[in-house]
């Protein structure tokens, strides 16, 4: 459905935000995972017609996004990462206004639509309240509601769960999974669990390039038998890093647990670890970090 090919973008300050990114995204939820600053938002904004790449091509369902942005916008829903609201406007009034802008000019259709959307995101009871007073979760649900106006076939959701508490996040996930059945939904996030929970397909973006792409389970399976872990003392970490390909470290009960990548058991007290998506993510990031100068495409194929 959505085809991104060879997109590059360098900002005037010299930052190369996207470097020859190509990716094909089918119907369904698609997770775009990457650390802050990896270029996710640049990619999202480019697809959302808000930014022009230096080179490359984006098509969606036969629409050349870069040359006919308005055609794409008719079928686009976008929840930006940095999303606020006007002061003194109620949820209902704002949705109604946005519906007009999305081409729903019939008043009765708009009324039904706004009602249905507010029901769907469970904001109907507070539809007359000022958006500015909404909590973070309510605001994000409103964001989804506005993105769903006009039943878009392409939905872009940029970092939607940042700042939500666990309960709000679960509710938000439920909402997303419900929506993502019959359209392209791109979920851009730096939270691995978001993708693990929701997305049948995913890609990992680092330093402006796609470093992994595929079905989460398959990506995890690729690492099967290649991840080892060991609990060590804090002071041993440097030594450990020098000797092994450390992909992640975290604290557990006051001790440092390191995960290392190795095709065979490195011994030295390491025990096998059943890989999860987080390991896939960190392993990919570790590769790009360790070989910044080397071409990154081989790193992706190596996985």
């Amino acid at each position, binding site marked *: 459905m959505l085809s991104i090919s060879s997109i590059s973008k360098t900002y*005037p300050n010299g930052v190369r935000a996207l470097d020859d990114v190509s990716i094909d995204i089918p119907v369904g939820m698609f997770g775009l995972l990457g650390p802050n600053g990896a270029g996710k938002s640049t990619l999202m*904004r480019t697809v*959302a*017609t*808000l*930014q*022009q790449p230096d080179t490359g091509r984006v098509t969606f369902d036969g629409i050349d996004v870069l040359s006919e942005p*308005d*055609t794409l*916008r*008719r079928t*686009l829903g*976008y929840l*930006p990462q*940095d*999303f*606020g*609201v*006007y*002061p*003194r406007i109620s949820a209902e009034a704002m949705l109604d*206004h*946005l519906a*007009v*802008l*999305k*081409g*729903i*000019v*019939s008043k009765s*259709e708009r009324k*039904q*639509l706004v*009602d*249905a*959307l507010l*029901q*769907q*995101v*469970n904001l109907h*009871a*507070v539809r007359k*309240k*000022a*958006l*500015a*007073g*909404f*909590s973070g979760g*309510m605001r994000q*649900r409103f*964001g989804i509601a*506005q*993105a769903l106006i*006009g*039943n878009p076939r392409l939905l872009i959701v940029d970092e939607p769960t940042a700042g939500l508490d666990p*309960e709000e996040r679960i*509710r938000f996930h*439920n909402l997303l999974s*419900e929506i993502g059945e019959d359209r392209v939904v791109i979920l851009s996030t730096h939270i691995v669990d978001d993708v693990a929970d929701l997305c049948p397909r995913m890609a990992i973006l680092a330093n402006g390039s796609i470093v992994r792409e595929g079905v989460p389970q398959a990506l995890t399976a690729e690492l099967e038998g290649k991840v080892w872990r060991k609990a060590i003392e804090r002071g041993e970490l440097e030594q450990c890093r020098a000797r092994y390909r450390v992909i992640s470290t975290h604290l557990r009960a006051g001790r440092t647990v390191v995960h290392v990548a190795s095709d065979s058991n490195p011994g030295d007290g390491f025990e096998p670890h059943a890989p999860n998506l987080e390991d896939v993510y960190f392993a990919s990031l570790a590769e790009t970090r360790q070989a910044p100068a080397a071409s990154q495409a081989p790193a992706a194929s190596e996985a």
Partner: protein
Amino acid sequence: MKSRFFPIVRFEAAYQLKSPVFLVSFVLFFLLAFGGITSDNVQLGALGNINVNSPDAITQNILIFSLIAMFVVIAFVANVVLRDVESRSAEMFYSTPIGKFEYLLGRFSGAFAVSVLLLVAIPLGIMIGVQMPWLDPERLGPFALMHYLQPFLIYGVVNLFFASAIAFALATLTRSMAMTYVVIVGYFLLTGVVGAITDIFNSAEHRALLAMFDPFGSAAYQEVVRYWTAFERNEQLAPLTGLILGNRLAWLALSLGVLAFTVKRFRFDVQPPSRKRKGDQQPEESGEPIRPAPMPVLHPAYGTAAKWRQFAERVRFEARSVLFSVPFMVLVLFALMVTILNFLSLDQIFQTAVYPVTRLMTQIMQGTFTLSVLIVVIYYSAELVWREREARMHEVIDSTPVPGWVQAGSKMVAMIVVLVVLLLIGVVTSMLFQLSQGHTDLQPMLYVTRHLLDYGLLFYVMAIFAIFVQTLVPNKFAGMGVIVLFVISLFVLDPLGLEDPLYQIGAAPGAAYSDMNGWGYFAWIQSWYSAYWLFFCLLLFVAAHLLWRRGGMDSLRLRIRRAGANLSPGIASLGLVALVGFLGVGSFIFYNTRILNEYVTDFDLEMLSVKYEQRYRDNEELAQPRITAIDNQVNLYPSERRYTLQGSYRLENKSGEPVPSVYVGFNPAAEVLAVELGGETADEIDEEFKVYRFDLDRPMLPGVEMELTFSTRRVNRGFKHARNAQPALAGGSATVIGNGSFVYGGDAMPYIGFSRGQIITDRNDRRKYDLPPIDRAPDLNDMEAARNSYLSRDSDWVDFRTVVSTAPDQIAVAPGYLQRQWEDNGRRYFEYEMDAPMQNLAAWLSARYTVKTETVDGVELSVYYHPAHDWNVDHMMETMRKSLDYFQANFSPYQYRQMRILEFPAFLGNFAQSFPNTIQWSEGLGFVAKLEDPSDIDYVFYVGAHEMAHQWWGHQVSSADVQGGTVLVETLAQYSALMVMEEEYGPDMMRRFLAFELDNYLSSRGGESREELPLVRVENQGYIHYRKGSLVMYALKDYLGEDRINTALANLIDEVAYQYDPYPRSVDLIRHLKAVAETGDELALIEDLFERITLWDLAIEDASVTENDDGTFTVSMEVKAAKLEADGLGRETEVELNMPIDIGVFTMRPDDDDFSPNAVLHLEKHRVTSGDSTFELTVDQRPAVVGIDPYHKLIDRKSDDNVKSL
């Protein structure tokens, strides 16, 4: 404890200093102060002889800017409290172990310190401004730090403290910035009302009372320096005593009280839930999203109709966001408040009411709405363009299928809608006010044309331009800066000589509305400029669409590169239409202003004057013949805005020496078709100044007569870039107009010799152009100059005959008696002839007049008026009748058999003037006066009597062109009018009138541009020959009696009526006055009043009363008296006082509304000498009030101590 206080102050100050608000306001304040000092055109508190860095000018600047600063200070101080609440970090701060005192006062002090720092920009701007090399050194005083420091502390710091305390209290108590602003505006409303009330009772006591109520100390300062002369204003600071001290202490104490109260009331807690904003109430979460209702089947539309629907929706949405925002409402309130106050004090002179005709109402609103409208344009254009971005809503909006033109265009249109609503609010208010006054002729179309179209045009264009600018710039403060610069340019371009409205965005040449003429031709001119700017706005719209910022923060360069992608065929054709229209209309305007007409700027006009003077000044002393008879025919074509004139002069050589060459000059703007002297054409023609030199074959010998014939015309082709609505004498082209033409003889007919009216007289301007200094008038005793009349050098008394033709539905009037009138070839002709010599003052007026006529004692009195202005016509008739009666009975017979008042359009001037047997009287003066309140001064009567008196003083007694010349004309006309008024309205009304005259005289002295002169040597200084003249003549009448004064005046007329060569002088009047004086006191008084600048300082120091056994009362009063003589700059020296002065004993104060002659127990002149003296008087009833000169007949700068209650 203290250790925590100062870090908080420092933190707060540092925080505020970093805010753009501080930086922007500091720069703005500095520039305003600097600009005010260094430019000739905007100057605060420094007029005439007052130095630009005088203590007075510095104080005035600090007063004004400390008031303006209030709006910024609120931002600083309220921010101190509200910042934590708004950023939701209140809990964080309130839960720290900071004491309330330290927290609040520390932050308050920080913000207050920053406010003080902001105001430093003003003295700094002045100090640096006065160093600029282009300043006129004569207008700079020496530097004195105290002149900056004292007003900065007394007014600046105290005012900022007051403003800070109030803002702090409001913000703390209301926890809302909007509420803080609203309450502040409410407060201004209140003081405004107090001000308006005090304005109505404008006396020294009321002003002093108001001065206490003014928290900024401005009223107190103005009251203290009200009568200060230039000398005092340049040398002295207003001392911190009396009214000023009282005011400052009172408001400082109040501010401290408010601060203490606020600290006491402040609680370290966040608002309880019930006080939270509506939206903060979160609903119960039910856990799961409910199963959605099925989505409706949608039929989205993307066609043109849908785009327009989106456009309309966007306009509605944007306009609503402004109209319902608190700052907008505050601005509306502010504009309405000022407007209503101005409506309530709708008067023109002497605080006498006028009818609220729509022309005046719209005129008032043009003044009162401008500030609010400008702020709306500057502030909201930025808000609208940047609000998506600031609300972080832009990516959502920008990813909807809405084209750029909807976004840019809807914001532009929304701004227009907002402005129209703002102006309409004014219109509705004004109409309601008119109805409340029982005025039902609302003229809604005039509101539309004048307020919404003519006045609004600039702001509409400015709004579109502002949105365009905001589209280009990378942030909104940069955009606002550009717009502020643009607003400043509105005031600066003209003085720089860049006058053409074609490149002044939103400008038009200025249209003039008159009830008589309607919009006339100006509607046509304005339409072209409106069309021009409409196309300009369309171009801006197209450009804004092409460059619209969508999504990211792409640089302007990038957007320009991509602009082509946004160029749809529709937009392209619109852009093309706009461009063609803009260029086409622009070319048409250019053709009118540059090709049909010569493009002449004010600067060009000044240069022309300089050149004229340099070329011809020598001719001033050249012997030339004088005009003795005028005969001409003037044809007025009102609908074509042109006239032609053919005429002849009889010239006679009265100079006593042979004249070899005669110079004949015309108004340089006139078209001269032919000019011949004695049948010969000119030997040399100066086309630039229209000066024709005739070298005579044989010199013209004394007594010889010659005939000069001339033919001239003025054709207004198309329109000019400026001055279309100004009278010809001001270099404009509004001479012949649709209804209400006014052609001056001096404009249409030639002068002989040199025309002094064409040279620059302003002393500062003359210095600028290196012209030699020039006297305002020749010395009083220059008998050579006394051979010239004060009116002109080229004529004495003349014979006059004219034929004037005009449109068939109009009446044309000129001096002289109507000999016959006829119609010929669809035009109406009038022939006027004067049967006795008259001053060379001719004017032709033509309009669709209604005429009211009556004949009294063989004199025909008429008023020619615009039929809608019939309110005061009968009263004008009565004025003429009563004036005629008094003047004929007391001075001399009226020399003519006819007197006519002629109305003319207000935009040609708000004045009345007396020509031979005609008075031209502006529709803006008196025709709409509302003379219902009997306590109002009847200025229609006053103006009428004054102008009538000129038929004697001016048209019987002329005056020499030397110092004191205007005494015989204006001072005596004032006296005559006073006498007619006193007869009609009684002495109480005179006292009220003279109180205005005294106040006007004393407060005008400080604005004198050279030096004040004694009346006998007055150099055409209005405040002396009118204002002081009234006071002097009325005082003299009081001492000598009306009969003796009138005898002296009758004798004067008897001696010098129609005299010329030499013309009568002020000393002739004084000679006749002295001749009727009977005592040395009276002679001395005449000298004090006329020959010196004399001031009295009379006061009752103390008074007591004792009841006597026989039931009478003895009053004892201690009087302090002094007589002062002032020099031209106002430096005073005490001189010996020894003269009789009124001492009065009353049962109530003479300025009491109920005061009547019954309240006078004793009023007689007693001899008073310099220093302290005691008077004892016995009266029959219990007295309540005593006074020395209680009716203020003598000129006393401090008149509130003349009367004392017992």
